[in-house]
């Protein structure tokens, strides 16, 4: 048997290399498209403006309010205010989320919660981020996050047509 191993050693060695290599090669056509689909976050500091999905976004306010004052003692209310200037209209809306890794040790996302607390958005603000018509508007969105866990929230802006690129407004 040892003679057989000796006679075929180079084929066996080639097999050891070629088998893992074939697995890697088979994965390449799926791996790179997967990477390309992952969200690519572009950071924007408060007050700075970034063009995204045909509109200029500027974060003008980001507050964390004590939920006790707004009828939600188990939560804090994060209020984000943005100026959105639609330059090249597209038939879509932008989705806003609050992102934070505080409290859990990994990034968590909270969607808007307009009716979940006593906080009412003043009438002069839009509560929907439509990118369908040219023009500038102020949008204010409240979010609920767990009480005392999120002190430095980040606002993420997503528009379907512009994915995987997303904006992270600090």
């Amino acid at each position, binding site marked *: 048997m040892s003679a057989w191993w000796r006679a075929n050693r180079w084929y066996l060695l080639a097999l050891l290399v070629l088998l893992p290599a074939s697995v890697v090669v088979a994965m390449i056509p799926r791996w790179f498209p997967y990477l390309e689909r992952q969200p690519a976050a572009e950071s924007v500091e408060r007050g700075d403006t970034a063009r995204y999905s045909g509109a200029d976004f500027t974060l003008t306010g980001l507050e964390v309010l004590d939920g006790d004052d707004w009828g939600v003692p188990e939560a804090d209310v994060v209020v984000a205010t943005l100026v959105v200037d639609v330059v090249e209209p597209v038939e879509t809306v932008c989705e806003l989320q609050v992102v934070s890794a505080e409290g859990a040790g990994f990034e968590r*996302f*909270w969607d808007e919660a307009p009716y979940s607390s006593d906080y009412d958005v003043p009438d002069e603000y839009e509560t929907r981020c439509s990118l369908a018509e040219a023009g500038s508007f102020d949008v204010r969105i409240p979010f609920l996050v*767990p009480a005392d866990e999120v002190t430095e929230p980040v606002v993420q802006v997503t528009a379907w047509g512009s994915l995987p690129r997303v904006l992270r407004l600090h």
Partner: protein
Amino acid sequence: MRARVAVPAGVGLVLLAFGATLFTPTDEVRMAPFPVAAGIGEEVASQHHVATIHEVALADVVELDGWRGTTSGVWLVAEATLAGYVERTTVGVDLFVDGVRFESTPRADSDTVDGRVVDPGLPVTGAILLELPRDILDRPGATSAVLRLGAAGDTRLDSVIEWRIDLTALEHHAEVELDRVRKGAP
């Protein structure tokens, strides 16, 4: 030497082909969700939810915020605390008994925790309610039913939480009054 090896090798390869055909996973197996096993009273997390089921029982009639739920079958009633894990997530609950799927009832509207959305770190507590046939306890799988919690809709290849429940060992009440969904854990 070669002839002696060739016949068994040929038979072996044919058997191998049969075995490969026999053990090739079905679509149902290949697309099955990834379950996290949980016990009653234990807090567990999937990729979507953090969940605790506090208790499970059977009932003939349920009352929930003025709604009186009667049935020709039997209600499976569970009290659960749920939150999202990473982001806002829908809640879907099914019970599997011997391969048959029973969905949570839509009859109680949104007064139960299933059918709602939950956010990370903001738990809600309330009832899970499933309407089951009267003969459910006589079915072969009744002693090892699986209660599955996942995102509502399609759970194929998705992360879910599963509780294995012996339906025949549950308390059976004539009537149960359920609390509405409330914020926080009990």
